């Protein structure tokens, strides 16, 4: 990571190379998305769910991968977005999908602020436990406020309008999928800019050595809180997308299981890189779908075995290990 930029020529070159890299990455997302659209026309609901969860995993990556905060309660941000979008549609008649997404993002940011303020008060194991307590608190609160959230029956009656007044949300989920892919691409582009910005660098510095960052005069706490709010926006968009595409919000979107699974997806793909988060999500959910369809009894065993294998043989995650191997091959060639 330590790129010394002595003369402007090299700086310019590295800059151009990273921009090319981002463009290739975004092109790859779009190409994979388009291939998915034509390859699995009957399975677009699953693909849309993968995109929504991918947004949640990206949001965990922002705090865990870039800031070093371990959390098992991130679904709180996702669920807040989903419920806010759902409640706006079901109780207030705000059925414009773009508006619903914005409301979800706002609610996610708010939930990020609240849970960030709680979780960041401790470090290490107590921090993990605080994050678990936060997600359970959100879960129980949503369960109790059943007149708003539908409780354990789930919140139904969400009927989003046509997107931009032109594209109806059809039974096959084509509109929802395309909208989701669009959201994902926009978010990834913005996050690319964010993690390369001075603020992104500061966040990475906090992960490496918080003491030194505070000695340099920056406030560690404020960096982390701001990152939590940004990550809340991303997770909230994911939640809203899920509410729009499935037209129902269940308590499982605020569950500990979802938080833990999302963290597992992130570590599976590799922390500290946006593509790692995406690769991990797609691999995990696709694997889960295939295995649970093939053998409903053994799928949990298989998922567990996959996780153990990743820890033993690909400790940097799938994307991290692949990038490392490619880098080595490239290095030898040069």
């Amino acid at each position, binding site marked *: 990571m330590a790129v010394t930029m002595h003369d402007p020529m090299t700086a310019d070159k590295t800059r151009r190379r990273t921009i090319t890299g981002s463009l290739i990455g975004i092109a790859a997302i779009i190409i994979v998305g388009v291939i998915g659209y034509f390859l699995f026309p009957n399975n677009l609901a699953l693909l849309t769910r993968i995109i929504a969860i991918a947004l949640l995993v990206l949001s965990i990556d922002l705090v865990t991968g870039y800031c070093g905060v371990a959390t098992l309660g991130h679904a709180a941000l996702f669920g807040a977005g989903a419920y806010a979008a759902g409640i706006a549609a079901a109780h207030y008649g705000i059925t414009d999908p773009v508006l619903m997404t914005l409301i979800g993002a706002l609610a996610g940011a708010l939930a990020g602020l609240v849970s960030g303020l709680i979780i960041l008060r401790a470090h290490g194991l107590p921090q993990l436990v605080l994050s678990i307590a936060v997600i359970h608190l959100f879960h129980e609160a949503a369960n109790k406020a059943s007149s708003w959230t539908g409780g354990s029956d789930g919140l139904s009656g969400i009927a989003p309008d046509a997107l931009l007044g032109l594209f109806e949300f059809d039974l096959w989920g084509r509109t929802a999928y395309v909208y989701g892919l669009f959201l994902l691409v926009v978010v990834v582009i913005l996050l690319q800019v964010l993690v390369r910005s001075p603020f992104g660098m500061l966040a990475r510095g906090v992960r490496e050595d918080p003491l030194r960052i505070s000695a340099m005069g920056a406030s560690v706490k404020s960096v982390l809180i701001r990152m939590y709010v940004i990550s809340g926006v991303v997770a909230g968009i994911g939640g809203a997308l899920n509410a729009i595409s499935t037209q129902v919000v269940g308590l499982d979107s605020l569950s500990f299981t979802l938080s833990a699974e999302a963290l597992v997806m992130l570590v599976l793909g590799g922390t500290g890189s946006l593509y790692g988060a995406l690769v991990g999500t797609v691999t995990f959910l696709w694997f889960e779908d295939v295995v649970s369809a093939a053998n409903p009894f053994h799928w949990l065993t298989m998922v567990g075995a996959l996780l*153990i294998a990743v820890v033993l043989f690909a400790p940097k995650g799938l994307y991290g290990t692949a990038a490392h191997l490619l880098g080595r091959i490239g290095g030898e060639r040069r």
Partner: protein
Amino acid sequence: MQTVFSIAVDALAYGMVLFVISIGLSVTMGLMRVVNLAHGAFAMIGGYIASYAARDLGLGYAVAVLLAVVGTVLIAIPVERFLYRRIYGAPELTQVLMTIGITFCIIGIANFAFGPTLKTIPLPEALRGSVDLGFRSIATHRLFAIVCGLVVAAALWVLIERTAFGIKLRAAVDNAAMAAALGVRTEIIYAVSFAVAIGLAAFGGVVGAELLPVEPYYALRYMVTFLVVVSVGGAGSIPGALMACLLLGAIDTTGRYLAPEYGEFFFYLAVIVIVILFPRGLAGRFK
């Protein structure tokens, strides 16, 4: 008055079961610094073995308990040898991933081998009924759980404070590298305390089967509770874990009795307050 009394008895019994299961987790976490999310899975294995021995094979309760403890330790040894060894000293996230993976595997296998139904462990005649205390009567099983918890706490206190092994264990918890340099065979300490921890988990899983029913998702459902107890008590501290179990048991049971519709809301609210007030745990040893 009746309610207060039954809350107190249930809270005490629940707290003691929590203590028996999670004290091993607390010691190994203080010792090896491993975030072990699979601890509850071992308690569940103990419950399954005991249920199989007592219900399907018709063996006595005491034999079933013994089989559960020995069997679970035997299962845990290769798991420790081949999987846990690789994650000592690894980053927290790696440990979480590995131990969640182990938990998923155990749940899947238990689901396949024993089916998704609840498993009961038939109690012997002596533990059924209830005991008359003169002014109140309480279920014998609750009393049994409380006594087990007290015995385990006392035995561990003797083991850790009064024996040569305990001295080495405490030295290794405080500073493993220094203890090794002074000639303490830390890997043996690790192995023995891991085995004791797993054995206690299995024991707690059997004794507490009436309060925490044995089913495949046991491992996930209570994993968090055990982790919370360790964090609130402070990893590696027996008095801390005991205090945490009694406190959290009391809060949880009171919440269930008085405001069942809120679920575990008050439990987790209390956890947040305690962790924020005592970020290093009640006994304050964890760094």
